[in-house]
Every structure is written in structure tokens, then in C-alpha cells.
């Protein structure tokens, strides 16, 4: 089950507790198991889109001891967008649950 824009919602969700670099965002989304067939490299364009929309900011960190990392951070607009996405998801899950849950109960 997926709805349009879920990758962006997931990306916002991974950033809600702390700033993360791209690799970590991608890893968490992949590990969630809900990203479907989308490859790791295809998640980055969604992060860039969130950046263009002003929901996240990105900054290169070169003091990592390894390759430079681009670290993403939620903006206030991103926090608000995440809250909106959560609300949307709750309504969506409740709606689906009210039907599928009932059917499952009858089965």
C-alpha cells in the first residue's frame, strides 16, 4: 500500500529527531521496507525536491573523517509539513482500517 508523495513523507519523518546525512536517510527508508522497488539513488531526488520546497536544508560536512557528507535538517516549514503529512496518514490509515479492518473481522 502506498500513496503519492510517501517517499517525501518518509524522508521528513527520518529527520524529525535529528539531522541526518543522505546515506543515513536512505538507509532508514530502505530498512523501513515500505519504499517498494525504488533504489537508493532514486531517493536522493526526493530529498533535493524537499530542499527546493524549503522543507529541509542541506549542508556539506567535511569533518567526518571520510567522504564529505551532505547533512539534511528539517526547517520550521518542514516540521509543519511533517505534521500535515502525519495527519493525512492518520486519516488515510483510519479510512482504510475502517473498511479492511471490518472485512478482516468478518472473515
Amino acid at each position, binding site marked *: 500500500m502506498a500513496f503519492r508523495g510517501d517517499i517525501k513523507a518518509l524522508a521528513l519523518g527520518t529527520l524529525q529527531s535529528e539531522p541526518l*546525512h*543522505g*546515506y543515513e536517510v*536512505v538507509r532508514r527508508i*530502505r530498512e523501513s521496507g515500505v519504499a517498494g522497488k525504488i*533504489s*537508493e*539513488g*532514486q531517493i*536522493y*531526488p*526526493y530529498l*533535493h*525536491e524537499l*530542499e*527546493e*520546497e524549503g522543507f529541509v536544508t*542541506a*549542508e*556539506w560536512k*567535511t569533518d567526518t573523517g*571520510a*567522504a*564529505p*557528507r*551532505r547533512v539534511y535538517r528539517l526547517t520550521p516549514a518542514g516540521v509543519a509539513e511533517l505534521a500535515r503529512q502525519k495527519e493525512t496518514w492518520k486519516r488515510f490509515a483510519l479510512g482504510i482500517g475502517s473498511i479492511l479492518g471490518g472485512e478482516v473481522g468478518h472473515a
Partner: protein
Amino acid sequence: MRDSVDRYIQDLRALLHFELPEAKVDTVTLEAESHLRESTAKQLEVGVTLDAAQTVAIKSFGSPQRVALTYLQRTRRKLWGLAPVWWAITSSLVAIFCWNFHWLTLSGYFDRFGEFDKNLEAGFVGIFAVYVMVLAARRGLRSNRLWITLSTLGAATLSIPITAYWMIPAKQDIRRPFEEGVSRFHIDRDLPKLERNLQNISAALGVINQGIHDYSTASQESAVASILKDPDEVVKRLRLGSDRFSILQSGIWPFYHQELVPDLSKVKLPPANVAMTTDPGGKFVVPRESGSFVMVDGRCWVFETVDSFTTAKMMWQKYGKTNQADLEELDRQFKVLRSHVSEAKQGRLFFFEPTLYMGTVFATLFLLPIFLIVDWIGSLSGRPRGRRKVIA
């Protein structure tokens, strides 16, 4: 030595190179490389070889084609930081301004070719505006330098046959190339003007010949013909060719400004000069220091006036012959133009005249680096702030 990750990054860069601004391509490829190196390092921790680790990392990341396509699909519909609608509105206003609003009345590009260069340049700006609008709508925030270059070169090349078809010019072998002509689509309207202008030139030549003759021997005012002391009469003769009066007021290429005064009878003209408001209004008609010029639409720059007989004599002796040569040349050019118009009416399709189409070709090519600079500036405006830290 380059490894699999390097080759992958090179492929990804090549796919995005002409599609996204350079700064964004840098960010995308740097970030992809960072991811692939980190992913490879994680694989190495479980004890596989470098090649195997890179292969797994690349496979998980996805093919360059898939990743590039996702970037293109997820790019916002903006061009150089602005929504397409603002580019459309702004560039359309510029194009209309360049066209002196003639385009809206279909009297610019489609009109006489005295303004051909201006109209065609404005035309290309307008075409570029439409082109940018289409690209912006279809492709979003992208660097368009490949398409800008190809379309500009294409437009420059295409302008040669278009010009050669559209405009009926005078001949190439004329000493001072006649940079005007008659629009193929306005032959019937312009041919009578052409004929009247030939009469105009003939009338001016009559005055010039008279002046050269009289002032070569005259030692006093009474020895010159009355017409040479009657500017109003000269104006009356030269008005033969004019059904409108225009002043080339001012202008910086390519934005010429032209003021048209449609009703000649209501205009108080300075004596003896059909197109100069700076004429002092003297008694004696004299040839112009800068030579004679007559245009297809009837504008004439032929005579001036001075106050004293002595000055008049000096002007005639100094500039009489050169103005005579100018008018004879103009007479020849107008006759050649008339014969070309006749050929066009009989079915001749093309008149390849380099003095006409080369101006347009060079003007178009001149715009190319400007377009590319605008594109480059647009790319810079999209530069992520974080990238500078990497360079540093």
C-alpha cells in the same frame, strides 16, 4: 586508477550534464559518490573484495539511467529560479517592446523591410521567449545551453533562406549596397511608392544639377536660378515621393525609436529639408555635407538651407558633386529594385543578398553568448550554499 564508482559517477554526470545546472550536477554527483563510498565501506566491513563491495553498492544505488531519470522527473518546473509564467510574461513584454508594438498590428515583421534587421532581431527575441517558455514548462529547472546553442545556430542559418525569400532587394554589385527592399507580401502596396520615389530622386537630381551648374560660375545671388533660393518650392517637389513624414529621432541599436507623423500637410516643415528638424530655415538651398539619402518609404535627406550666398556657394562647390553621385547611385538602386520586384511578380522565389541576410545572421550569433551568459547566471543562482564548503 579509476574504479567502478568513478565510472558510475562519470556516467551519471554525462546523463545530467546538459539537463541540469552545472552546480546541481556537481551536488548530485558529489552526493552520489559520497553515498557509494560509504556503502562500499560498509560492504568491506563484512569481508568482501573491493570490486564486489562496489558492485553491491552500485546495484543498490540503481542504474545511472534510473537515478538520472528520477532527478529529471522530480525537478521543479522552474527556470532560473522563476516560475515559467513570469518568464513568459517578461520575455513577451521585451519582445513586444522590441517590436515597437508593431507585431500586434502585423505591421512590423510583415511590413516593409526598411526595418528588417530590427524586426528580425525582435523576432528572434520573441521566438526565444516562446522557446524558453516551452522548455521551462516541459523541462523545469535545467541548464539549456545545448538547446540554446543549437536553436540559435539553427535560427541564424534559417534566416538566410527566409530573408532571401521574404525581401526583394537591390543588387549585390551596387557600389553602396542598398539595405532596403520591398516585402514580397506588399509588392502591390510598395510598388507605387517606389515609382514615386524615382520621381523624387529625379526631382532632386534636377535641383542638384541646376545648383552645380549655376554656382560654378555665379559671383552674385542674382546669377543663380530662383528654385535654388526658394526652399519651399524644393520641398514641394520632393514631397512627390512622400505620403508620410518620419523623423529618425534617436536610438541605440537595436532599439531604434521612430516617430511617425502621418499627415504631412499639417506638419510645419523647415524649408527645403524633408526629414530634418534641425534645419536653420535659411534662404539658400544647399546640398548636405553628409550626402543624400532616400528611402523606399519616401523619407528623404537631400538638402539643407543656409543664410548667406557665400556659404551657399562654398557648400555647392564642396558637396554638389558628391550629392549628385549619391542621387545617381540611388536612382540606379531604385531602378534595380524595380526590376527585381518585376522578377518577383513573374515568379522568382529567392533573392540571396548577403548585405541583407548577413546582418541578421551576425545579430543572431551576437545574441548567442548573451543567451549562454544568462543561462550560466541562472545556473549560478541555483548553486547550493553548502557546496562552497567542499571546494574550500
